[in-house]
C-alpha cells in the first residue's frame, strides 16, 4: 500500500499545507480545484492541477465521483481530503478504496465505527472516558424525562440525538421549564432531522474546550501529542487556539492525555485524530466528540512537538508504523494560533471577498504563517472565510502572547477586511491574558466589548 502520488481534494491554506507535506516525503502532488480556485496558489504550485467542477462545492469539492475520477485521470494512488468537505465521509473513504486508491485518514470501517456522535460517546465511555452526565438513553415520555432530570440534577440541556447546530436544543433550570421544553424540542427536532428522540445532558455553563491530539498506526500503536485549548469561540466557531491549556494543572493535563489515547487505542481507532473535551471550573473533564481528520489548529501541536502531523497522517495511511514512541514526544513551550478570517468584526463578522492588494507574512523567531494568499489573489465568495493561520511559539505563555501581539501587527494584508483588530483586542484582554476564557464568554459579553471599549473583559 505505497503512496507515491497524492490527489489533494481541498482548497485554501490546507491544500498548500498538504502539498508541502507531500513534497517533503517525496510524493507527487496533484491539486483538485473548482472553477473558482483556478488561480489558487496550491493549483499553481502543484505538480499538476485538475479542475473537478464549478464553484458550487456540491459539484466539486463535495462530489465523491468527481474527486475519485480526477485521481484516476491524473494517475494518483491516494487522496487526501484535508478538513471539512469529504474528510470524514465513510462512504467516500470506502469508494476511494474500492477504486484501488488509499484514503489518507482512518480506514472506512474505522470512520464508520466513529461516525455517529452518540455511539462514539458510549463507546469511549465503555473504555473509561468520562462523559457529561445525562439521561440513560432516550427520553420515553414526560414522566421518564422528569425522573431522569431529578436524578442528574438541574440545569440541564435537552438535546436531540440527531443533527446539530442548536436545533431542538433547550437549556432548562426547573422541572416546569423541562415540561415546557419537551414538546417544543420534539417538534423542532422532527422538523429539522426527521427524528424526534431526545436525551438530557448536564448543562455546564462556564466550560472550556480542551482537545487531545493523537496518532495511532495500523498495528494499534498509539501516542498522544499533547493538548490544545480552543475556548476562544464565537458562536461555536473557534477563533484562537493555544497549547498547552492554561485551564489544567500539568498533572491533570498528563492524566487527560493518557486516558484519551488509552481509550482510543482500546476502541480501535487508526490514523491521526482529536478527542474533544469540556472542562468545568473544577477541572473535571468530559469527552464530547472525536474528530477523525487533520484539524485546522494542528499547527499548534506541530509548534509544540516539532512533528509534521500531515506527513505523519500520510505515512500512517501508507501503512508505515509510527516512527516514534510516546517517550520520544517532547512538548516544549507554548503556542498560539490566530485564525485570520475574511470577515468584518465591525459589522457582525460579515464575510468578505475581494482582491488582495498587498500581502506580506510576518516573520521572526517562532512565527509561522500558513496561508494561501498572495498579492493579486482574489478571495472568492463561495467558501469559508479562513485566509490563513498565524501561529507563534514561545518558551512560555507570556512570551508567546508577546510574539503574537507583534506578529499580528506585522502582518501586511490590504484589500480585504479581516478580523485582525479582533485578535489584537483579544490578545490585550484581561480574560485572555489571565487564561480564564470560557467558550460562552464572547457570546455573552459580545465581541464589541473587545473592540475599542475602554473596559476590557
Amino acid at each position: 500500500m505505497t503512496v507515491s502520488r497524492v490527489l489533494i481534494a481541498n482548497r485554501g491554506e490546507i491544500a498548500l499545507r498538504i502539498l508541502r507535506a507531500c513534497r517533503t516525503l517525496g510524493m507527487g502532488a496533484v491539486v483538485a480545484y473548482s472553477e473558482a480556485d483556478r488561480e489558487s496558489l496550491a493549483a499553481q504550485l502543484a505538480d499538476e492541477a485538475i479542475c473537478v467542477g464549478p464553484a458550487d462545492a456540491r459539484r466539486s469539492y463535495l462530489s465523491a465521483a468527481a474527486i475519485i475520477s480526477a485521481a484516476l485521470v491524473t494517475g494518483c494512488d491516494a487522496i487526501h481530503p484535508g478538513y471539512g468537505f469529504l474528510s470524514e465521509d465513510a462512504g467516500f473513504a470506502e469508494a476511494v478504496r474500492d477504486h484501488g486508491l488509499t484514503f489518507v485518514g482512518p480506514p472506512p470501517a474505522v470512520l464508520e465505527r466513529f461516525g455517529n456522535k452518540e455511539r462514539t460517546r458510549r463507546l469511549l465511555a465503555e473504555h473509561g472516558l468520562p462523559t457529561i452526565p445525562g439521561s440513560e438513553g432516550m427520553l420515553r415520555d414526560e414522566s421518564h424525562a422528569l425522573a431522569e432530570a431529578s436524578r442528574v440534577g438541574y440545569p440541564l440541556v435537552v438535546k436531540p440525538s440527531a443533527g446539530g447546530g442548536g436545533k431542538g436544543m433547550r437549556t432548562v433550570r426547573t422541572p416546569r421549564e423541562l415540561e415546557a421544553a419537551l414538546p417544543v424540542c420534539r417538534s423542532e427536532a422532527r422538523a429539522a432531522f426527521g427524528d424526534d428522540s431526545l436525551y438530557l445532558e448536564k448543562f455546564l455553563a462556564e466550560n472550556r474546550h480542551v482537545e487531545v491530539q493523537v496518532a495511532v498506526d495500523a498495528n494499534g500503536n498509539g501516542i498522544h501529542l499533547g493538548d490544545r485549548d480552543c475556548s476562544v469561540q464565537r458562536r461555536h466557531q473557534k477563533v484562537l487556539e493555544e497549547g498547552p491549556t492554561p485551564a489544567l494543572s500539568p498533572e491533570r493535563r498528563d492524566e487527560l492525555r493518557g486516558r484519551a489515547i488509552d481509550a482510543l487505542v482500546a476502541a480501535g481507532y487508526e490514523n491521526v485524530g482529536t478527542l474533544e473535551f469540556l472542562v468545568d471550573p473544577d477541572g473535571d473533564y468530559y469527552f464530547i466528540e472525536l474528530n477523525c481528520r487533520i484539524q485546522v489548529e494542528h499547527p499548534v501541536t506541530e509548534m509544540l512537538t516539532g512533528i509534521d502531523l500531515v506527513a505523519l497522517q500520510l505515512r500512517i495511511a501508507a501503512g508505515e508504523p509510527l516512527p516514534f514512541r510516546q517517550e520520544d514526544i517532547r512538548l516544549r513551550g507554548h503556542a498560539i494560533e490566530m485564525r485570520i478570517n475574511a470577515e468584518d468584526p465591525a459589522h457582525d463578522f460579515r464575510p468578505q471577498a475581494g482582491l488582495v492588494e498587498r500581502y506580506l507574512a510576518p516573520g521572526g523567531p517562532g512565527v509561522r504563517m500558513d496561508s494561501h494568499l498572495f498579492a493579486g489573489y482574489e478571495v472568492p465568495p463561495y467558501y469559508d472565510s479562513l485566509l490563513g493561520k498565524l501561529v507563534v511559539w514561545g518558551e512560555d505563555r507570556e512570551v508567546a502572547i508577546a510574539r503574537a501581539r507583534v506578529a499580528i501587527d506585522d502582518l501586511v494584508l490590504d484589500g480585504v477586511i479581516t478580523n485582525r483588530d479582533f485578535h489584537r483586542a483579544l490578545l490585550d484582554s484581561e480574560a485572555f491574558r489571565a487564561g480564564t476564557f470560557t467558550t460562552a464568554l464572547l457570546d455573552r459579553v459580545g465581541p464589541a466589548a473587545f473592540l475599542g471599549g475602554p473596559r476590557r473583559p
Partner: protein
Amino acid sequence: MSEERAVGGGPRAGSDGAGAAGSRSEADRLADHAAIDRLTDELLPALIAKLGASGLGELEVREGDWRVRLRMAADGPDRAPMRRAGSPVRAGSPGTAAVVATAPHGAAGTPREAAATASGPRGSDAVRSSEAHPPRPRAVAVAPAVGVYRPRPGLAVGSRVRTGDRLGVVDVLGVPHDVVAPADGVVGGSYVEPGDGVEYGQELIRIELASAAVAGEPTTPGAPPRDPAPAPAPPNPAAPAGPAAPSAPGAPAPAPSAPAGPAPSAPAKEGPR
C-alpha cells in the same frame, strides 16, 4: 443605458433604481463602463497584437485603477491539456491569448472581472462568453465533468452538428456525461484524443459556426480571427443625439456606450438548415 437617458429627458432620470446595483454610485458605474469600453475597443486589440508580435509570454499594463494582464498559452497550437508543472496558469484557449482585467474595489467593495478569450469559451461559459464580446466564427464543446473522453462513433472533422447534439461523453467512474454541441456548425477539429483524461470545462471539440462556414470564411486553428461575424456590430454606437447636455454638477459626462446591459445575442443561431 444611454438611450433611456436620452428619452427620459434628464441625464439620470431613466436609470435610477433597477440599474443601481448594490451601493455603488451611478458615477462609479459610468466611469467603469467607459473604462471597459476603452479596454475592449482600443486597448485590448492593440495589446493582443503587440503580444503576438513580441514573442513574449505575458504582458501587464496598469492604468489608473485598472490592471490588464495578457498571457500567451504556452501549450501547442491545437491542444488544451491539463495544467502541468512549469506552466502554472493556463490561458483560456490554445494558441490565443486570454485576457483578465481586474478593477479594484468600487465603493461597495466588490471588484468585477471582465474576461475575454480570443475564441470565447472558458469553462462552461462557452456560449455566454462568446456573446459578451465581439463574436467569433467558432465555438468549442467543453467537458461537462472530469473523466475519460470518448467521442461519438462516426464524429469526424466536417461532421455537421446542431446546438445540443451529443458529440460524445466524458466517462466519470462508469457514468457517461454528455458532451454537447454549443452551436450549429461543422466539426473543425479536436483538442483531445479518444480515451484522454479531461478536466471539468476542458475544451474538447472545435465547431466552425454555421454562418461562418456559409460565408466561406473557415478559420485556421491558431490564427487570430480576422473579422467578427456579420451580426451584431460591436456595441459602440455613438451616443444618441438627444439632450447630451453636460450632466449635473459633480456627475461625469455620460459614457459613450453602455455595455453593461444584456449582451447582444449570439450570431448565426438561425443559420442554414
